[in-house]
C-alpha cells in the first residue's frame, strides 16, 4: 500500500458520533449518508420491536415460573435486534448469540423451538436451514468465524447470500473476533458484523474491555469500513445494515457496525446488575427507549394511530399468550436421542451404551 493509499484509508473510520435518524424524543435527525426507511418499513420495525419486547417479557416470566432454565434478556436492545434482522433478504443468513432469541424469532423461527436451548430440552431446537439461522452461539465470538466461512463459501459457490453475525462488546475482546474480522477482510467475504455494544459483559463495563476510541474503530486495523450507529434508533440500524448488506452483496466486502445500546436487565435472571451499576445509569437509558421514540416519530407523522397501535399490541399479546400456553406443556424427552446424533451412524460403543441406558430405565432397579 502506498502512502497515498494509507492516507486515503481514513474513510474506513467511523463517524465521531453515532449515526442516527430519529432522536430519543422522536424528532427526525437528517443524515445525508443514510436513507430513512420508508413508512412501511418503519411500521414493520415498530411492530417487530413491540413483538420482540413482549416475547422477551414473556420469556423472563417463564423463567421465573421455572419453565426456562435461564434467560438472557435483550430488553432495551430491540432496535439493534430487530433493525438488523429486518434489513436482511430471505437468502441471507443470521449467526446469532444466546442473547438474540428476539432476533431469531423475528427471522421467522418458531419461538418454542428457539427456547428449546434455554428450556434445557436440547441445545438447538430449530432447523438452521429452514429460516437461514445458525444455532445460537453460547461461547462468545465463535460464531463470527462461522459467519465468515459461510459467506466465503457462498461466494465460492456463486450464490448471492450475505451473512449477518451478531456479537456483543465483550465478544470483541475474544481472539475469534479478531481472526474473523481479519479473514473476512482478506477474503472480502460478504459478511456484516453487527456489534451490539450494550455497555456490559455480564458485570464488566466497556471501559475495562477496551481502550479503543470505539469498537467500530477496530475496523480500520483490518482494512474494513466501520460504522458507529445509535443502537436504540431502529431506523438508523436498519439503514446502516441494509447499506452494508448491499455492499457485501455487490462484492465490496465486509463491514463492521457498532450499535451503541444498553442492556436494561441483568445479564440473565441469575445475575444481579445492582451489584455493579447504578439505577441512575439505567434510568438515563430508559429515557432513550427504542420503542418509545419510534412510536413518537410515527404518531407525529400520522403513520401510527391508536387503532393501529392497539392492533399491534394485541397481536404481540396474543403471540405471547400462545407462547405461554405452548411452553406450559410438559415436554417428553427421549433418552435414546442422546446417542443418535453424535456421528452419522452410531458407533458400536454408542449402541452398547444406548442399550445399557435402556436397560437401566426399563428395570428401574439395580439388576
Amino acid at each position, binding site marked *: 500500500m502506498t502512502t497515498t493509499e494509507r492516507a486515503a484509508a481514513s474513510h474506513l473510520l467511523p463517524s465521531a458520533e453515532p449515526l442516527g435518524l430519529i432522536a430519543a424524543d422522536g424528532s427526525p435527525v437528517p443524515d445525508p449518508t443514510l436513507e430513512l426507511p420508508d413508512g412501511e418499513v418503519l411500521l414493520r420495525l415498530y411492530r417487530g420491536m413491540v413483538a420482540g419486547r413482549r416475547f422477551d417479557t414473556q420469556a423472563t416470566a417463564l423463567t421465573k415460573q421455572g419453565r426456562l432454565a435461564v434467560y438472557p434478556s435483550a430488553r432495551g436492545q430491540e432496535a439493534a435486534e430487530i433493525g438488523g434482522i429486518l434489513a436482511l433478504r430471505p437468502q441471507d443468513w443470521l449467526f446469532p448469540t444466546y442473547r438474540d432469541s428476539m432476533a431469531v424469532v423475528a427471522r421467522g423461527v418458531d419461538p418454542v423451538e428457539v427456547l428449546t436451548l434455554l428450556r434445557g430440552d*436440547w*441445545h*438447538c431446537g430449530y*432447523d*438452521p*436451514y429452514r429460516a437461514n439461522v*445458525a*444455532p445460537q452461539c453460547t*461461547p462468545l465470538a*465463535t460464531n*463470527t*468465524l*462461522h*459467519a*465468515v*466461512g*459461510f*459467506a*466465503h*463459501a*457462498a461466494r*465460492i*459457490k456463486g450464490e448471492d447470500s450475505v*451473512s449477518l453475525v451478531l456479537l456483543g462488546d465483550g465478544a470483541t475482546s475474544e*481472539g*475469534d473476533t479478531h*481472526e*474473523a474480522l*481479519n*479473514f473476512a477482510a*482478506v477474503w472480502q467475504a460478504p459478511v456484516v458484523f453487527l456489534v451490539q455494544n450494550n455497555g456490559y459483559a455480564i458485570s464488566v463495563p466497556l471501559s475495562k474491555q477496551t481502550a479503543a476510541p470505539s469498537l467500530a474503530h477496530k475496523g480500520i486495523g483490518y482494512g474494513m469500513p466501520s460504522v458507529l450507529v445509535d443502537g436504540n434508533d431502529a431506523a438508523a440500524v436498519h439503514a446502516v445494515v441494509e447499506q452494508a448488506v448491499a455492499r457485501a452483496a455487490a462484492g465490496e466486502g465486509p463491514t463492521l457496525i457498532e450499535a451503541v445500546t444498553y442492556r436494561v436487565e441483568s445479564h440473565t435472571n441469575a445475575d444481579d446488575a445492582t451489584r455493579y451499576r447504578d439505577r441512575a445509569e439505567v434510568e438515563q437509558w430508559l429515557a432513550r427507549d427504542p420503542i418509545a421514540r419510534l412510536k413518537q416519530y410515527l404518531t407525529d407523522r400520522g403513520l401510527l394511530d391508536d387503532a393501529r397501535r392497539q392492533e399491534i399490541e394485541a397481536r404481540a399479546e396474543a403471540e405471547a399468550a400462545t407462547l405461554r400456553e405452548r411452553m406450559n406443556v410438559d415436554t417428553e424427552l427421549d433418552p435414546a*436421542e442422546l446417542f*443418535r*446424533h*453424535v*456421528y*452419522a451412524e452410531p*458407533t*458400536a*460403543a454408542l449402541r452398547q451404551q444406548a442399550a445399557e441406558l435402556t436397560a437401566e430405565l426399563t428395570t428401574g432397579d439395580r439388576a
Partner: protein
Amino acid sequence: MTAIAEPTSTSDTLTMAGALNRALADALTEDERVLVFGEDVGTLGGVFRVTDGLAARFGEARVFDTPLAEAGIVGTAIGMAMNGLRPVVEMQFDAFAYPAFEQITSHLAKLRNRTHGRVELPIVIRIPYGGGIGGVEHHCDSSEVYYTHTAGLRVVTPSSPADAYALLRQAIDSPDPVIFLEPKRRYWEKETARLDHRGSTLDRAVVRRPGTDLTLISYGGALGTTLEAAEAAQEEGYSAEVIDLRSLSPFDLDTVAASVRRTGRAVVVHGASRFCGYGAEVAAQLSETCFHYLEAPVLRVAGFDIPYPAPNLEQHHLPGVDRILDAIERLQWDDSAPAAGGGV
C-alpha cells in the same frame, strides 16, 4: 457430484507425503465441493510438501493460503461446511493446532448433536503429529487423546503410504468430522502398493503381522518400531501379532479383542505419554472384555509423563525396540512358555 474413481490398477512406489498428496489431488478432482486450505499450503505446497502442486493444478479458489490463525482456519471451515463445502484443512504442526481447540471441541465435534443431526460437518483436519524428526519444542506433540476424548470426532492415523491414501480419501468422504493425524516421522518412508480407497477401513484396525504368543497394539509413528520389535522378538522365540489400530476413534475393539483372546497377552505401544494415554483405554477395554483370556496384565510401552523433550534427548523418550522387548519379557511367561519354546 461425487464419482467413484477407478482404482489405480498398477502399483506405485511412493512416500506417505506423496500418497497424501495423491489423495488430496484425487479428491479435488472428483468432488468440486472439496477445498484445501491452511498456512503455507498454497504456493509453497505445505512445510512438508503434502499439498505440493495442488494450488497450481486446482486454482487458488480451491487450494489457498490463509492468514496465520488456526482458530480462524477451523472456524471458517465450519461455516463453509455448513454451506455445503467439504474443507480439508492443515494445521502446520501438532502443538500449533491448540489455538483451534475450542472450535474443534465446542463446534466441530458438537454441531451435529446440538442440531439433532441437521447440521453435518464433513471436515478433515490434517495434523502432522508426533516426534522422531529432531524438531524443536512445540513441533513434536502426540496430541491424539485430546481429540479421542471428544465425542463427535473421528480420529484416524495411518502408518503406511497405502493406508495414508485410503484413509484420507475415506476421511474426506466421511459425513463426520475427522482429525487426521499424520505421523511426520513416517512421511518419507517409501512403499510399493496399489492405491485404493474403496472398502471400509476408516474405522477398522488391521493385523499387520500375524502371531500366536502375544499381541502388540500400536498405531501411527510407533507402528514401524513395533513391527521391528516383533521381528526381534521372533528371534527370541516369541511369535508376536501386530495390530495397527488406524482408527483411534472409534476404537475397533472387535479386531483387537479377537487377537488377544487367541494370544492371551497384549502390549500397547505409542509415542504419547503413558498417563491417560491411548494405551490406558486399550488396556481398560481389554481387561473388561478379555479378562478370562489374559495370561498377564496388559502392559503399556509409551513416552514418559513429561513435556516433549528437546531433540537431542528425544531418543530416550520415544519407545524403541528394546523397551518393547523388555515389556514382552515381563508378560509372565514362567507358567506358560511361548509356543515357540523361547522366553525368559
